[in-house]
């Protein structure tokens, strides 16, 4: 029943215009969501890091309203979610620390220093371990989020930015921005097992749900590198809009934020052909998809918005104003 109510809330949240089509659509959705929630909950909330506002805006994704604002400090940018979605981990490059947020309580549970330029951050899916990329030390730090202790550090390429862990937890990947490569690191041995070349200046990195492919957004060459993680080889390069920042995956498509173009470029992940461009707010940056693949949410740094894209129609269906300078760099949905 809860999932049926949630489905109605999603539709009614979109406003009056959509009311006539709500009834039939919701009935279909309710059954689909019911099946999905039995296995795992879909995305209910977004935790948007506001770099200028020094806070996290918690957005209720059913109603697309800001439910809470959590003050942090330190110009927060990178974000990750614990495997059980109970905690959000936020990297603040100015104060050089990581905040651990209790997601339900909306409070900062802990904060601790990490390196000299923490930005990209990711969490292991099952272990209490987070990985923090240090822009200046050219390292990936392994951190215990419960104690705040740094338990390891692995050399990467120059200025690692995006970080992602494979769904099985076996490997962690960094997009090494100033080395034009991805480092693939074994999480058990903490050894780098592969270096894969990318386009010019890779920033965000996203791994698909099966752990078969990784996608990097290459800021300077205006394209996305598609990497086969089994073969550890590049299988394609897809041109996108100007100054791409990050990639989300939903419904067999990749959604790429183009900062300068103010668009999200969509391409088919099988054919690697463009499927459309969606106009969004100024400086679109962090982007992430719900697990059911129906919606993608994007943070727009210049316009201070979180925008909701319908994957089936490739249109923005809702937007909400969040704090100042939202970046949401990493996994920001729970």
């Amino acid at each position, binding site marked *: 029943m809860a999932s049926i109510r949630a489905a109605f809330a999603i539709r009614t949240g979109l406003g009056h215009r959509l009311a006539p089509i709500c009834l039939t659509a919701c009935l279909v959705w309710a059954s689909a969501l019911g099946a999905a929630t039995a296995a795992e909950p879909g995305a209910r909330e977004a935790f948007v890091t506001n*770099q*200028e506002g020094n806070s996290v805006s918690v957005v209720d994704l059913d109603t697309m309203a800001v439910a809470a604002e959590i003050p942090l400090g330190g*110009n927060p940018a990178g974000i990750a979610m614990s495997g059980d979605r109970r905690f959000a981990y936020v990297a603040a*490059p*100015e*104060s*050089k620390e990581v905040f651990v947020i209790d997601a339900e309580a909306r409070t900062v549970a802990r904060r601790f220093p990490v390196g*000299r*330029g923490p930005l990209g951050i990711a969490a292991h899916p099952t272990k209490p371990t987070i990985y923090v990329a240090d*822009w*200046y030390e050219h390292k990936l730090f392994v951190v215990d989020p419960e104690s705040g202790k740094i338990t390891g550090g692995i050399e990467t390429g120059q200025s690692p930015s995006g970080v992602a862990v494979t769904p099985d937890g076996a490997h962690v990947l960094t997009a090494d921005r100033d080395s034009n490569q991805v480092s693939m690191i074994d999480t058990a041995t903490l050894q780098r097992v592969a270096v894969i070349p990318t386009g010019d200046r890779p920033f965000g990195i996203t791994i698909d749900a099966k752990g078969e492919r990784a996608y990097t957004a290459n800021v300077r060459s205006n394209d996305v590198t598609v990497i086969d993680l089994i073969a550890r080889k590049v299988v394609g390069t897809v041109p996108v809009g*100007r100054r791409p920042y990050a990639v989300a995956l939903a419904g067999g498509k990749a959604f790429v934020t183009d900062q*300068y*173009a*103010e668009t999200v470029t969509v391409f088919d992940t099988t054919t690697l052909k463009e499927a459309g461009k969606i106009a969004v707010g*100024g*400086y679109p940056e962090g982007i992430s998809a719900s697990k059911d693949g129906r919606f993608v949410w994007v943070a727009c*740094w*210049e316009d201070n918005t979180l925008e909701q894209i319908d994957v089936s129609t490739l249109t923005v269906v809702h937007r909400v104003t969040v704090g100042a*300078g939202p970046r949401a760099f990493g996994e920001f949905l729970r």
Partner: protein
Amino acid sequence: MVRAVAFWCAVVAALAVALPASAHGPTRKKHAETIEINAPADKVWAAIGNFADWSWHPAVEKTEATGNAVDATRVLTLKGGGKITEKMLKRDDAKRTMSYEITEVDVKVLPVNQYSSTVTVTGDDKTSKVEWKGAFYRGFMQNDPPPELNEEAAIKAVSGVYKSGLDALKAKLEAGG
């Protein structure tokens, strides 16, 4: 003794204030300026929307451009020396807006990195409003910038370029130029 404690308190207080401001990595900043001009919006757009000629800006000595469409590049030679190379990113004449980025500039000329900017004209056949906004990083991209290349210096420089430009544009167009 009391004086010594007071001295150290002052030092500690000064450090506490100084350290967080100086010892950090770069964060992208945004800055915008607007101005109202008593001239038709189309006329204002004809001036500021002409990527190939920005002689209306008091700092610009010469504009050398490859065109006036997306992907066009231009070199602005500034009065007193210094050059800025820019590239047009977006243009919409119906909406009277264009965006461009700086592809090459010495931080001694303008203390910014990864600078992009948008100019937009709104209004009617009598009055207009111009918005000039930019997004950029400071001049020094490593940790611990010198004061002339920190965030405050970048914002001050960009604000100066926008304000002096918009003031001159208003004066020129309201004079019937």
